[in-house]
């Protein structure tokens, strides 16, 4: 439907709301961030230069425009600290997303095959952790994983390990935290597509000579791919930018881009560089989103 047909009707004015929302709360702020990313750091208030001052007149504004530069972006792609942060973020997101698919798919598949009356309960169980704040749940994991935490105590009591192991501040702890936190976002879209598959299709495949394994790989799996895609996008993108989980559970020797960004912004007070890192991150994440959208359009 063309924009004209939507906005032409009075009732269609409501369709303007999301566009206004995006304009006010995404595009305009993003414009500020882009502007700051092209500025230079300064010991001033605000901590960057140049500052646009409309009251100073046209020549001053032009001078301010000419002072903008791509220096921050040059630094981001040449300094190994930033390049490694980006790479680590992408690797962590890839590994976590793979783990999430491997773990979430069987759970979603099992849920979809439960008797109807149990499916709502299973869904509740998946959603229930959201009742507790995300931050509190991550702190709970710190409690479990620390030196004298629940995990080490249990393993010691069962005589599985002779002395406490180091769990906390490792990559394993970080992956555990990420997979734990994002699992519902993988399960729910997967469950939604799996539950939608007409059982008659599976019967038809069996009727035509496919064993149960063949039926899964030839019918169920291909038909669930839109759900896998949605789950992957829903998890991969926020994991790339993840800050809290690696900061609390991983060691401090490797940083993800979210942590680097935080460091630049709050510790080094380098707003322009932090903004450039944010703009760069968004550019990186646009790629998987566009791929996903194209795939979805082909499905239709």
């Amino acid at each position, binding site marked *: 439907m063309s924009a004209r047909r939507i906005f032409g009707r009075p009732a269609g004015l409501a369709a303007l709301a999301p566009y206004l929302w995006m304009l006010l709360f995404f595009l305009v702020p993003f414009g500020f961030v882009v502007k700051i990313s092209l500025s230079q750091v300064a010991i001033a208030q605000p901590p960057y230069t140049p500052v646009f001052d409309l009251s100073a007149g046209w020549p001053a504004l032009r001078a301010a425009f000419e002072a903008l530069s791509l220096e921050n972006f040059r630094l981001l792609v040449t300094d190994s600290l930033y390049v490694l942060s980006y790479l680590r973020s992408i690797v962590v997101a890839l590994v976590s997303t793979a783990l999430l698919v491997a773990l979430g798919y069987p759970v979603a598949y099992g849920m979809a095959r439960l008797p109807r009356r149990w499916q709502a309960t299973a869904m509740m169980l998946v959603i229930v952790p959201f009742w507790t704040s995300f931050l509190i749940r991550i702190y709970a994991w710190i409690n479990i994983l620390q030196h004298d935490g629940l995990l080490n105590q249990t393993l010691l009591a069962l005589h599985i390990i002779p002395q406490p192991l180091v769990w906390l501040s490792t990559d394993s702890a970080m992956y555990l935290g990420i997979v734990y936190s994002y699992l519902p976002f993988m399960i729910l879209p997967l469950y939604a597509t799996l539950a939608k598959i*007409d059982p*008659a*299709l599976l*019967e*038809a*495949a*069996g*009727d*035509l*000579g*496919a*064993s149960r394994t*063949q039926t899964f790989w*030839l*019918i169920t799996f*291909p*038909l669930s791919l839109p759900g896998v895609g949605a789950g992957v996008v829903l998890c991969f993108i926020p994991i790339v930018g993840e800050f809290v989980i690696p900061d609390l559970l991983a060691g401090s020797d490797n940083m993800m881009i979210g942590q680097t960004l935080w460091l630049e912004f709050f510790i080094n007070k380098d707003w322009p560089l932090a903004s450039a890192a944010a703009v760069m991150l968004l550019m990186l994440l646009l790629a998987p989103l566009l791929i996903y959208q194209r795939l979805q359009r082909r499905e239709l």
Partner: protein
Amino acid sequence: MPLLRIDSVVKKFGKYTAVDQVSLDIRAGEFFALLGPSGCGKTTLLRMLAGFETPEAGRILLDGMDIAALLPHRRPINMMFQSYALFPHLDVRDNIAFGLKRANMPRGEIEARVAEMVALVKLEGLERRKPDQLSGGQKQRVALARSLARRPRVLLLDEPMAALDKKLREATQAELMELQRRLGLTFIIVTHDQEEAMTVADRIGVMDAGRLEQVATPRQLYEAPASRWIAEFVGDINVIDGHVEAQAEHRLTIATRDAGTIVAAEPRQPLRKTSICVAIRPEKVKLSRRGPVTEPAGAIAMNRLEGVVTDVNYLGGITSYKVKLDTGAVLRASMANTARLELNAYSASQRVTAWFSPDDCVVLEQ
């Protein structure tokens, strides 16, 4: 030996018995219809033949081999689903080839068989279409081609034409019969549409509440129903309660409250009770202003009833009438409109004589 023998099969869902002690023989090359109201167990019976349900008791023999416990993919039986169940991510060609690939048929043979099937159901040129790019009728053809591709010993059809409009349904019925005869295959169709069952099937099995009530040719089913329930389920019928007064020379004299004394032909099965009912199809009831004009000597005595026409429904091929008898009961009659002009039509409130022959009466135990 029959191709398929269903022997005392029982299927329960919890406390509910969906199929209750059904025994049935299907001959090779037969077009058999399972007919019944929804919930009568006909689809469950079909699903047991396909292998989607396992019977609690009884045997299903195909060529003398018990297949009741075999998984669907191990049976030489295919099913055409009511929803067609076409794989949405595969095109027409791959849908038809699906079963052939599972049978590990060589690539060349698959190509040839798919082409043959596509030609059989007249879908040439649509091989690369996905199911959502097809019309309802085309989907139905793909489903048929897919289920026939493996040359099943028995093809099961679950309400295959329920989603088609009337004209397309009639054309498809004719094609289905032609196809079945040409391929010499055994078809079992499940339907709730008695006209469809009578059109396509050689024999019809009528089910009610999990039981197989009668197995007969369409003609037998209509003209000699086995019970009052079947008589009323298949087609329209007048049913008059009464009891046998006398029996002589293959004629029963029946006293009824609604229609006085009726003379009916003696049924082939001896009656066990005297309290019975008489059933007469509306088209067997003739109407006239004075009754049968001449009744040659020695001819069978006709049953005559006097009444007033209350309803006239012109339906094109026939006109159906309701006649309120002098006893207060209502008798339905229908007459073929054999002439274009209104020559022997009756109008409401006209007094008429309704008459029918004893041979047209079916005597049924309640």
